[in-house]
């Protein structure tokens, strides 16, 4: 599938205008009073709508739109459970349950970063340093996911190579974050959020409209269950409007464990322990502001994640009805009634002579399920006559087997070119608003939580500015390198899920326990964080076959296996969060129960509203 024509001068002009507008708002914020703390200092809060959109724009990135949207294109609408968790957990529980305690305790203790909040709550410099180190080391995975999402789309939209798009994306990012885009300027985030809203609304409307309305579109997709490719069927894929097959101990349950544990739970619950989101609660004026932000936050998130998950799934129906014709030799009939078949894809090598298109991964002829449009006599490369079957296929076929390419391929194929440009700005907005907070968190983790805790604050009182800048440049380089080297199927969603899962297992019990319980102790928190982190790491390196196999350590240990339990289905598909988070929670409870409670003076500082 080819993308749009190469970038032209109007594209460049619109992108430049967007960047100038963003830069101008950022500059206004820089010199004016438009960051969250400025609002607080001015004695008032940011408008709840602005606060919610700003939070949402930080929450949602190209990872959700391109990465998880592509996963929905591959696996279907079961991902809507992730949208449900994004709203129910990521907005409702986060704002209504965790927001106020986080704000209060952060202000009581004078914490300004998430590691500092944990460190001060548990009176442990070690906890602060460990948390800062984890963020500094692993945040680049998530940044790489965001960058890959933007670059994959830019490459498809403007017809350039992925590497070129990544380079340009990195340069824009560097220009944005290094000189000062790190300041959490709410109006910039809001502009970006509004562009995201417009882009998503149009995308959703266009997709349903072009497929005949909501119910008709869903029915068409439901009727396509028999077009699921065989390898996905064997994993338990039952169609794009059906949950994967559930069970334990057989290959056909693999997809359920992947989708539910890694994608839905890992990211859906993991959001509660995202450092760049947690610090936002501390910049809020009051509980009332948090409550008022819930509606906008929920509507923003349903639009930002629900749309790509629905559109990603429905792109299969659009391609089956409107995609370019594929040609080939019939391998087997899927349904005579629906006139669907699996073909060996062929191309016209020379006029009138057709030859097989080989799958670069398997070295065998490429297979594609198609809705047959026509059948004609033709001649193959050896001069043998055959019946040429032509038809339209599903999204992942047009995306060349890469889930990450599904949304970009759909946008460039189905939507008008002007929308591609708007969508690019949508993605650029989503990426910039998320990355500014990612780099902010990474920079403060390196400077405030690592350097200043280990080496000390310089005598002149100036912060470790060079350290922060160096950390940001290093983070940027590592992220770009990861995005450049790891180009596997649905890598965007996987990188995101790894970071979210790691943060959840390591931080969540200690963070939530520290907000609500006086009985959790420092040893309990330390043990819980260590268990959460090392169990997750062990699982990623030795058990979860997709990650462990790619990293390769387990292969060296076992002589070629991709998991220590490769033969014990379905353990290699289970995400670490399912194991590490309960263990981390249990450790917090057990160790806290048998260790001395924190001293009452400290507890009185943490919870002055509730004296003992």
């Amino acid at each position, binding site marked *: 599938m080819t993308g749009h024509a190469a970038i032209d001068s109007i594209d460049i002009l619109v992108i430049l205008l967007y960047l100038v507008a963003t830069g101008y708002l950022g500059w206004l914020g820089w010199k004016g009073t438009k960051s969250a703390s400025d609002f607080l200092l001015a004695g008032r809060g940011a408008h709840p709508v602005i606060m919610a959109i700003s939070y949402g724009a930080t929450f949602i990135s190209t990872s959700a739109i391109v990465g998880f949207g592509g996963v929905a294109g591959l696996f279907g609408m079961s991902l809507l459970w992730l949208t449900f968790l994004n709203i129910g957990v990521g907005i409702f529980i986060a704002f209504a349950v965790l927001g106020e305690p986080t704000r209060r305790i952060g202000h009581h203790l004078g914490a300004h970063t998430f590691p500092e909040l944990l460190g001060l709550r548990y009176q442990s410099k070690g906890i602060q340093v460990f948390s800062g180190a984890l963020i500094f080391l692993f945040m680049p995975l998530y940044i790489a996911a965001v960058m890959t999402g933007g670059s994959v789309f830019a490459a498809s939209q403007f017809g350039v190579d992925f590497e070129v798009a990544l380079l340009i994306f990195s340069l824009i990012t560097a220009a944005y974050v290094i000189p000062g885009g790190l300041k959490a300027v709410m109006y910039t985030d809001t502009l970006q959020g509004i562009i995201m809203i417009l882009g998503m609304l149009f995308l959703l409307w266009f997709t349903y409209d072009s497929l005949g309305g909501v*119910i008709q579109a869903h029915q068409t997709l439901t009727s396509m269950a028999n077009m699921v490719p065989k390898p996905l069927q064997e994993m338990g894929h039952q169609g794009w409007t059906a949950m994967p097959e559930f069970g334990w101990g057989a290959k056909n349950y693999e997809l359920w464990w992947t989708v539910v544990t890694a994608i839905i739970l890992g990211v859906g619950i993991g959001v509660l322990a995202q450092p760049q989101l947690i610090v936002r609660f501390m910049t809020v004026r009051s509980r009332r502001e948090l409550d008022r932000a819930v509606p906008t936050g929920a509507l923003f998130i349903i639009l930002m994640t629900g749309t790509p998950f629905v559109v990603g799934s429905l792109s299969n129906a659009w391609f089956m009805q409107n995609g370019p014709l594929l040609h080939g030799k019939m391998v087997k009939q899927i349904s005579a009634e629906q006139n669907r078949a699996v073909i060996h894809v062929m191309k016209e090598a020379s006029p009138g002579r057709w030859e097989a298109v080989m799958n670069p991964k398997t070295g065998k002829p490429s297979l594609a399920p198609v809705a047959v449009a026509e059948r004609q006599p033709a001649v193959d490369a050896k001069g043998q006559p055959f019946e040429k079957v032509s038809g339209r296929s599903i999204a992942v076929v047009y995306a060349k087997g890469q889930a990450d390419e599904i949304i970009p391929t759909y946008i460039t194929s189905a939507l008008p070119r002007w929308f591609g440009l708007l969508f690019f700005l949508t993605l650029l907005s989503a990426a910039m608003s998320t990355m500014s907070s990612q780099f902010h968190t990474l920079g403060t983790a390196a400077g405030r939580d690592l350097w200043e805790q280990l080496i000390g604050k310089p005598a002149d009182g100036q912060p470790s500015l060079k350290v922060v800048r160096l950390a940001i440049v290093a983070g940027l380089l590592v992220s770009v390198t990861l995005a450049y080297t790891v180009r596997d199927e649905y890598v965007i969603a996987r990188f995101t899920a790894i970071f979210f899962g790691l943060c959840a297992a390591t931080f969540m019990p200690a963070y939530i326990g520290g907000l609500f319980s006086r009985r959790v102790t420092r040893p309990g928190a330390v043990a819980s964080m260590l268990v959460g982190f090392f169990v997750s790491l062990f699982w990623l390196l030795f058990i979860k076959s997709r990650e462990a196999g790619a990293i390769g350590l387990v292969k060296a240990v076992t002589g070629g296996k991709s998991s220590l339990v490769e033969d014990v289905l379905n353990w290699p598909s289970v995400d670490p969060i399912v194991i590490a988070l309960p263990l981390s929670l249990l450790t917090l409870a057990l160790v806290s129960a048998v260790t001395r409670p924190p001293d009452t003076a400290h507890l009185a500082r943490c919870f002055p509203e509730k004296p003992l």
Partner: protein
Amino acid sequence: MLGIEDPLIWLAYLACLAAAAVSVGYGIAQRNRAPDTLTREDRTWAKEEKKVENEL
């Protein structure tokens, strides 16, 4: 329902809409319920936060 046969999928679809509706309802119901006071501690925190931001 909604052209989708699997109850777990249409339920997810409706659950998303319901979660958004509950969130909107919550926000409206709680609109003025919680206190909205800015303490000296909040101001001190904001001043320090401003310093941290500027240091970046």
